[in-house]
């Protein structure tokens, strides 16, 4: 029975613990296979046995200079052609004699062609390398095996990322391959200061991660804290970068996050140059960056390519869109229910006329339309692309036209929701908190009018102010106020001014 296991507890909770067929994390211990056996055949047999005869594990026996040699690899993770041509063929065809006592050295230096070579005495570690796509070579009578890097993972080509789309930026994005991602990063930062430390997370998945930073620019204490947090991560499987957020994020209870995410090598490189720490996770194109500030959610790479006045204007637009997407529906409900005197008479008359034909109250109406919108959006995201147009048409016609004609919802509210929906997509990183907060503000506005909304706004600001990660406040450089960093916040001054004082995240620490 294959049961998902999560962080020391079963997926279904304690009540399942009594069942005999249930596997708990506590029961799963590291399988120790001991040292590499001197019998090459025996090593091959053990490998076959521990994988239960899995068809992708290839164990091949042969002879090199009269000595038995066993090759083991995982099919699909290695370059088979390279194994045959550069390793197996030269070894099996070798007719001479291996230097006694230095057999493995001789093989490495005279016979095979491989740049990535290492030796392993522990069989468990050797098996782990096999799972990483390496070829294991066991030679009869040797207490260690050769581990040769012949990896060739199936991967998609480098494509333009779907998220964080840039108008004038590069058209390449990260892939699922950790090595490819590091190569893309090296292309962007051709400096010896760029450091990428390899580490592993996940007790079972042993997912490889790269902790990237720029030496001399990153703060050592911050780096140590990131490493410590990742080491302490109690997780069974790590299948995506999002799994690490919990460990890296701020401890404050908030819908916002201080862990940035990007698919773009250029953005990632820029963040590292600011002294931040990046984490590339194997198997996902989304790399993480810590710490990320609130103001960065409104910045794009295009801002640095466009003229400063236009970049400033666009940042203002994005910030305004963020405010509209959170507060507008709630404010409309609040004004409509409690503060009608604020609206000019003519406009009020039109709104009353249209809203009087509907079934629901303003609050209910707003909630219903938002529910429908979120449902359509989720359906659009999850369904097969081939039927996407059908859903769009149903959504547009039913919600946009029929619902208003039928008197289920009012046209003004529909306009408000449509505007809000568009605005919420401007800063896509903030979509998750926006969609939840918007609903909360509709409820608060319907309950206590503008006063409630402002109290809610106050709570939101204080919560945002309480957020800090690695000593950097989330609302910096606005609060705490840092005048010299405002030049690249909501405003964007000229490149000359920006280069006079280069932004470093450590300068924003409290």
């Amino acid at each position: 029975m294959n049961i998902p296991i999560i962080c020391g507890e079963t997926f279904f909770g304690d009540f399942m613990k009594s069942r005999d067929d249930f596997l708990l994390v506590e029961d799963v211990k590291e399988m120790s296979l001991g040292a590499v056996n001197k019998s090459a055949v025996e090593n091959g047999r053990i490998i076959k046995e521990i994988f239960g005869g899995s068809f992708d594990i290839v164990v091949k026996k042969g002879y090199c200079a009269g000595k038995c040699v066993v090759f083991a690899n995982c099919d699909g993770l290695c370059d088979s052609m390279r194994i045959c041509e550069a390793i197996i063929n030269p070894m099996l065809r070798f007719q001479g004699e291996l230097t006694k006592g230095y057999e493995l050295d001789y093989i490495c230096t005279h016979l095979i062609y491989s740049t990535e070579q290492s030796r392993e005495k522990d069989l468990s570690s050797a098996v782990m390398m096999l799972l990483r796509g390496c070829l294991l070579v066991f030679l009869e009578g040797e207490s260690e095996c050769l581990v040769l890097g012949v990896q060739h993972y199936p991967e998609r080509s480098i494509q333009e990322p779907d998220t964080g789309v840039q108008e004038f930026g590069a058209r390449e994005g990260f892939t699922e391959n950790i090595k490819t991602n590091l190569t893309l990063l090296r292309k962007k930062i051709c400096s010896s200061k760029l450091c990428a430390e390899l580490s592993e997370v996940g007790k079972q998945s042993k997912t490889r991660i790269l902790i990237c930073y720029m030496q001399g620019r990153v703060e050592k204490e911050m780096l140590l804290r990131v490493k410590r947090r990742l080491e302490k991560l109690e997780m069974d499987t790590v299948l995506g970068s999002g799994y690490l957020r919990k460990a890296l994020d701020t401890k404050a209870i908030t819908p916002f996050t201080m862990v940035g995410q990007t698919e773009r090598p250029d953005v990632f490189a820029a963040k590292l140059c600011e002294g931040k720490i990046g984490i590339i996770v194997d198997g996902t194109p989304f790399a993480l960056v810590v710490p990320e500030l609130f103001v960065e959610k409104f910045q794009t790479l295009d801002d640095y390519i466009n003229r400063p006045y236009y970049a400033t204007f666009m940042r203002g637009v994005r910030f305004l869109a963020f405010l509209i997407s959170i507060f507008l529906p709630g404010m409309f409900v609040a004004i409509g229910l409690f503060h009608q005197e604020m609206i000019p008479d003519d406009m009020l008359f039109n709104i009353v006329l249209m809203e009087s034909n509907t079934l629901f109250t303003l609050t209910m109406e707003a909630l219903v339309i938002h529910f429908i919108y979120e449902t359509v959006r989720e359906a659009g995201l999850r369904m097969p692309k081939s039927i996407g147009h059908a859903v769009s048409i149903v959504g547009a016609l039913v919600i946009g036209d029929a619902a208003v004609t039928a008197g289920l919802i009012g046209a003004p509210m529909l306009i408000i929701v449509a505007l809000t929906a568009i605005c919420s997509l401007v800063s896509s990183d903030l979509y998750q908190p926006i969609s939840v907060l918007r609903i909360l503000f509709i409820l608060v506005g319907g309950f206590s009018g503008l006063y409630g909304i402002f109290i809610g706004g106050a709570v939101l600001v204080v919560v945002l102010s309480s957020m800090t990660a690695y000593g950097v406040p989330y609302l910096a450089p606005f609060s705490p106020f840092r005048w010299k960093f405002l030049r690249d916040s909501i405003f964007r001054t000229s490149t000359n001014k920006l280069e006079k004082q280069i932004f470093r995240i450590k300068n924003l620490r409290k």
Partner: protein
Amino acid sequence: MKQRVSANQFYFALYLSVLSTVFMYLSSPDIKVSQTDSILRPVVFCVLSIVSVIPSMIVVRKHRQLKKERKYIEKTPFLKIIALFYGVVFFFSLVKTFARFDLFVSSELFPNADMTLFLACIVGVCVALSFLDIGALGRASVVFALVVASSTALVMLSLSQELDFLNFTPLMENGFGKFLGEGTLFAFQAMEIGLITVFSTQLEGDVEKGFVVWSVLSSVTFAAIFFFVVGVLGGFADTQLFPTYTAVSLASFGLLERIDALETAVWILCIVLKAALFSLAIIKSFHIAFPKLSRKITGTALFIVCSVLINFISSDIERFSFLSSDFLTVALFILSTIILPVCVILNMRRVKPVEKLQEDI
């Protein structure tokens, strides 16, 4: 670990807190708002606040000198008694703030509505915010200040068309003594000065300079607000319970015919911040007085007691009158800004150097 807050951020919070007093300034038969003297009363506030803050400033300095001895100081029984007094004083101030807000809401905003749940929610929100500590409140106040300043400027701009210079009366009409008395009473409403002693261990940066700037800036803002109240309303201001609100309700901006709801909502930011600051001070004081009492329990108790008390006061205007009586205002101000800080200083003088204390232990 205690959060630290820069003096500037802290004074931003105090500025907004003290501003809420003026936004909800109550007119009384004894002190007339309509007199032009009210524009000059903030001068008395400025002078008195600078004088009365001296003991608190000495406390801050002493705390910085006695960094090592701080944990021993907090354990002294005398300081626990002082902390208890502080807790009670700020509790009264908190209840008074909420009671005034309740009066404002029930008389101006929602005259016919039952405000029990609304007030309980606000008390709950303020107590919950106080758990985020002074650092978060200080940082948030910078953002709040921006919102409040821009909205107040907008209202002033809008009201400038309504100004009538015939509304201004001659200065010191009733003599300098009366003016001084009224100004002093106005200044004594600034209970925020007492908060400096409570948060003295968490303040960073130039506290003295920041206070002077705060005092001057607050006085200028008060004077500007009273200028518009007098200039727009004139004698009519004396007939209004909340003259500042009445003046604001005359403002309009572009498409928005009345922006009083918007402005009032902004004021509520100040009240929330003030209440959160006082709640934090109460929780902190009680934590020093009773170290075994957890902050969460103190906060929950504060929420319950405060909600019940406000509803108790809300039902009877005489109870509110007692709470905002001149005697109580003066007594609480002197206690929190002069007597208790002096007691804290005396307690610090009694503490031996840390080496000697460790030997004794």
